[in-house]
C-alpha cells in the first residue's frame, strides 16, 4: 500500500460523501472505502500532471447542437403497469415514508 494512499481522502470525507450519495455505509465499509478510494484517487490524480491551460473540457464527444422535438403529445406509459412495479402505492400515487422537514 503506497505510503500516502490515505492522504487524498479521509474517513471524515468518506462520511460526508456517503451522506451526499445517500449510502448508509457500515463502519467497516467506510473504512474500506477510505483505503480504496485513496488508492484509486492517487492513480486518477495523475491527470494533474498534464498541462491543460486553455484546453476546453469535452462534455460531449459528438459535436451536435440544437436537437429539438416538436411540441406534440405522445402516448406515455400505462399507469397500472408502472404502479405495479412500485414498492408501495396508494390512490394512484407512490407511497413513501414521511419526508423529514416537510410541512403539510
Amino acid at each position, binding site marked *: 500500500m503506497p505510503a500516502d494512499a490515505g492522504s487524498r481522502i479521509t474517513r471524515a470525507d468518506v462520511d460526508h460523501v456517503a451522506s451526499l450519495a445517500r449510502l448508509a455505509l457500515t463502519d467497516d465499509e467506510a473504512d474500506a472505502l477510505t483505503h480504496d478510494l485513496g488508492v484509486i484517487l492517487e492513480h486518477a490524480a495523475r491527470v494533474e500532471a498534464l498541462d491543460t491551460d486553455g484546453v476546453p473540457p469535452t462534455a*460531449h464527444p459528438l459535436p451536435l447542437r440544437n436537437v429539438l422535438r416538436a411540441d*406534440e403529445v405522445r402516448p406515455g406509459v400505462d399507469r397500472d403497469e408502472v404502479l405495479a412495479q412500485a414498492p408501495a402505492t396508494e390512490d394512484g400515487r407512490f407511497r413513501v415514508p414521511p419526508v423529514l422537514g416537510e410541512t403539510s
Partner: protein
Amino acid sequence: MARTEVVTATAWEPVIGLETHVELATATKLFCGCANQFGAEPNTNVCPVCLGLPGSLPVLNARVVEFALRIGAALRCRVPEQSIFARKNYFYPDMPKDYQISQYEEPVCIDGTLDVDGRAVGIERAHIEEDTGKTVHVGGGGRIHEAGYSLVDYNRAGVPLMEIVSRPDLRSAEEARAYVTELRALLEAIGVSDVKMEEGSLRIDANVSLRPAGDAAFGTRVEVKNMNSLRSLGRALEFEIERQAGLLDAGERIVQETRHWDEGAGVTHGLRSKEEAFDYRYFPEPDLVPLAPDAEMRAEAAAALPELPADRRARLSADWGIDEDMARILVGTPGLAEYAEAAVAAGAAPVAVARWCTGEVLAYLHEVRVAPGELALLPDGLAELVALVDDGTLSRKLAKDVLDECLRTGEHPSAVVKARGLAQVSDEGELAAVLDAIVADHADVVAAYRAGDDKVKKKKRGFLMGAAMKATRGQANPALLNRLLDQRLG
C-alpha cells in the same frame, strides 16, 4: 416586534431580489411528449422519461426554446451564442431521477431589465429547468405508530419552467409587489404562461437582507419561500424586514438560512432542513447537447412579441387621453384592455369607455370572478351604452343601473332601456309642462328663492329640481331641465 428608538437607531435599507419560477404553457413537458396539463388524475401524464426510469433519455421541446427566447426578448436580455443544460444533484422523492435538469453556468438568457413604475429593475438571468412532481403529506394520527407518510404524483415532473432571477434591486415590499405585478403582466402578454399564482404556474422566492442605508456592501441574506399570492409576498417581506431589523438593532447576527412564510401565523419560520448550504455537484448534462439559438430563432422570438404592457399603457394614455393610473388598471387587469379597445373600435368614445371599464365593469369582474372575455355583455354592448349616454337618451345615473343589468344578463342596453322605459326625457315641451306644474304647486318655494341669498337660492333650486326629477321618475335630461327651470325662476 418593537424597535427600540435608541439614540443611534440605524436606518436599515432592505435589499430584495426575487426568483420567479414560471410554468410555460406548452402542450407537452420539457423533455418528453407527456401532456403539460394541470389537474389530471395522479400519474396519468407520465412516461419513462419524466418518471426517470432506467434507460430513459430527455429530448428538448422546441416550443420551450421559443418561449425562452421570447421571454429573453421581452426582458431585453442578452442571449449568448450557446447555453448548456446541467444536472443539479439532490435526493427528494418528487424528483424521479434524484437530479434536476437545469442550467447553471451557461443559462439561455442573461443581463436584462424590467421597467417597474418607471425604474429599471435588473434581471440577472433567466434559465430553463424541469419542474418536480408533487408530494402530499398524509397523517399522522394520534397514535404513535401512525407517523404519517407521503404520496407522490409525477404529473408535474418534467413540466417546463423558466426561472427568472432579478438583481437585488428592490428596496421594499411594495417595490417587490410592483415587480411581480409587472412581470406577471408581461409574461401573460407575451403568451408564454397563464401565470396563476394560485395554481402554481407562477412561484416566487425572495432573498432579503438589510444594510445600513448608504452602505454599498450587502448584508447576510435570508431566503423566503412559500408565498402563494401577491398579498402573501407583501406581508412576508414586511415581516422579514422587520424581523431582521429587530435582530440587527439588538446587535445580533442574521443567520443565512431558508425560511418558510406561514400565512396563518403571519411569520417566517426557519427550516431545520438538511438541504441548507447544499452541494448540488452541478455538471454539464451529458444526455443533452448545447442549445445555440440561430439568427432565425432569435428573429422569430422578437417578432412574436406582442405589444408589451408598458408600451400599451403609454399608447392608451396618449391616444385616449387617460391618466397613468387608469391605463395601469386597464392593462394590468388581464383581458380588460382588450375589452375596452374592442368597445372603442365599435365606435364609443375612449375616455367614457375607460371610465366605465375601470369603474363599474371592474367592480363586477371582481364580484363574480370572471375574466373580461367571459362577460355576458360584449364590448359592442358597452359601446352602445356609451352612445346612449352621449346622445342624451340615458342619464349617467340610470346608465349605471342599466349597465349592471346588462352585465348580468348580456342584454343590449337599448333593449333594457326600451323595456323599462328608461329613455331620458329630453322633450322640451314635456319638461316645460312638468316644470310649470311644479312651479305652480310650490309657489312659496319660488318666492323664497327669489327673495333669498345665494345659500337659500341653492337650497330652493335643489328642491325644485328634485321634485321635477321625481315627477319624471329620474328620466329628465338634467341639462335641459336646468335651463328650463332657470327660465321660470328668472
